């Protein structure tokens, strides 16, 4: 199978290109000196790491506020998407397609344009420089993905089980929780995962809506990259991506468990 071998080579090259920068940044986090033109650092240290964990640095605080913000967006975004999908796929309202198209609208308006456009309104609603304001603009960025995912999975699961539960005497809320929710749970978790990652990565929208007062990892990382402090920038990046990966894999593991149980 010549073509299969070629395709395996493509994947190998892809994996190398993806992992190489990750490895280099991980090396940078423990580098003391890495002068030109060495291929490897001259000396290693745990100093930057120590300073970060035990020093006066606010990393822990910023990490926690980033996680909290992203979790809020993930939960609210997914609940909104669940409600929307229920209206379009179970109640089958007129204008279902219009909702689907409206959901994609934020993808056609660049984040920079949206953030600069909405700022006046956020100020008028006294939401500028507040967590609520930042959550709102992050929701706009996350909802296209949440709604698409939830509409797909809700349409696939339907409400037949729920109707049976209702016939057997369960109330509407109870029948939804017990009959439909388990079926759409994989969608709920992937929607939450997507929203979490999107909120976590936002830079410009957080900067404008938060006015610099709401600090996230994305925000504090930029000055380190600009100043060329590669060791510190690398540590922040590692914490940034590492914490996102942990949340992502926890949710992935949960999805797999549910899928296996369902079979």
């Amino acid at each position: 199978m010549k073509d299969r071998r070629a395709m395996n080579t493509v994947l190998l090259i892809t994996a190398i290109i993806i992992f190489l920068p990750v490895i280099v940044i991980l090396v940078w986090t423990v580098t003391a000196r890495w002068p030109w033109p060495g291929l490897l650092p001259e000396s290693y240290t745990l100093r930057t790491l120590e300073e970060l964990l035990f020093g006066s640095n606010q990393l822990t605080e910023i990490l926690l506020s980033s996680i909290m913000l992203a979790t809020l967006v993930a939960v609210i975004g997914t609940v909104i998407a669940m409600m929307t999908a229920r209206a379009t796929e179970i109640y089958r309202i007129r204008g279902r397609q219009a909702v689907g198209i409206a959901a994609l609208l934020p993808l056609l308006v660049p984040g920079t344009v949206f953030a600069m456009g909405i700022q006046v309104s956020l100020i008028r609603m006294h939401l500028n420089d507040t967590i609520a304001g930042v959550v709102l603009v992050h929701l706009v960025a996350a909802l296209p993905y949440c709604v698409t995912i939830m509409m797909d999975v809700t349409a696939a699961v339907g409400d037949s089980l729920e109707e049976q539960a209702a016939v057997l005497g369960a109330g509407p809320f109870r029948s939804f929780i017990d009959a439909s929710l388990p079926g759409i749970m994989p969608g709920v978790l992937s929607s939450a995962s997507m929203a979490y990652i999107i909120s976590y990565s936002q830079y410009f929208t957080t900067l404008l809506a938060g006015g610099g007062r709401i600090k996230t990892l994305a925000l504090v990382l930029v000055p380190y990259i600009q100043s060329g402090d590669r060791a510190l920038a690398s540590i922040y990046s590692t914490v940034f991506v590492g914490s996102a990966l942990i949340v992502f894999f926890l949710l992935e593991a949960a999805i797999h468990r549910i899928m296996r149980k369902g079979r």
Partner: protein
Amino acid sequence: MKRRDKIVSALLLTPFMLVTALVLIAIVNIVIQSLGYMPVFDLYDVTLKYYAEVLKRPEVLQSLGVSLKVSFISSLAAAAAGTLICAALVRTGRTRGGMLYTVRLPILVPHTVVALFTVAMLSQTGLFARIAYAGGIIGDYTEFPGILYGTGYFGVIIAYIWKEAPFIAYFSLALMSGISGTLGEAAENLGASPFRSFMHITLPLSLPAIAKGFLIVLVFSFGGYELPLLLGATLPKAFPVYTYIEFLKPDFKLRPYAMAMNGMTLILSLLMALIYAVCMKRLMKKLGGGYEG
């Protein structure tokens, strides 16, 4: 629909409508302010002069050119590379597991971190420059090409491709593996070579997903801020970076200029979507016609 159902579904839709309304409000704000109507600052005349004046600035056109170039080149390359990666995943049967997680990794990496990756690899003291020195290709780091911070924006383009090619691969995977497993296999059973079956069956039928992914990354990179800020040249700046500088000017009478620039980004983004919609309609017709004929 029963009356009760109508009320319930309206309630269910309300939060979605409210969030979507924010996008429309932002658009309306941009349109109104870019036309010079800002009562708070005693600007009442509705005029197109801000657009006209902005368009006359040479640096605006240069910035627009840079952003269009970066977004088109990076998105086209990402679509091509993404399709290849997707085809490789399907062909080797690695549509789940470790390799798929590897491909999904760049989707999880924020743009700010992608910028740091790019600096660590491609700057004049980055890993590639060191490898080039070790291999005797260059004698000093000044001889390594200035990929970053140059007017060619190559660093930004490469960074976008690293991030968006996997996105397109992942975005197209469900459709492509579905088609390849059914119609593509059927073609091979009828004697078509894997390459021929891919080019004539799987690829054309996967185009809707690839094109949609292309549009998403095109609009995103056209309006993207972090990568050109961190990896781009001082002049000309990418259009969103330039727009934000204009937006930050403390004299509020200048605000309509920034908003006119946002309006231009908006118009161009919607134009991209429109062209996409027209092309998709044609493609669907062609594919649909192919089935019948």
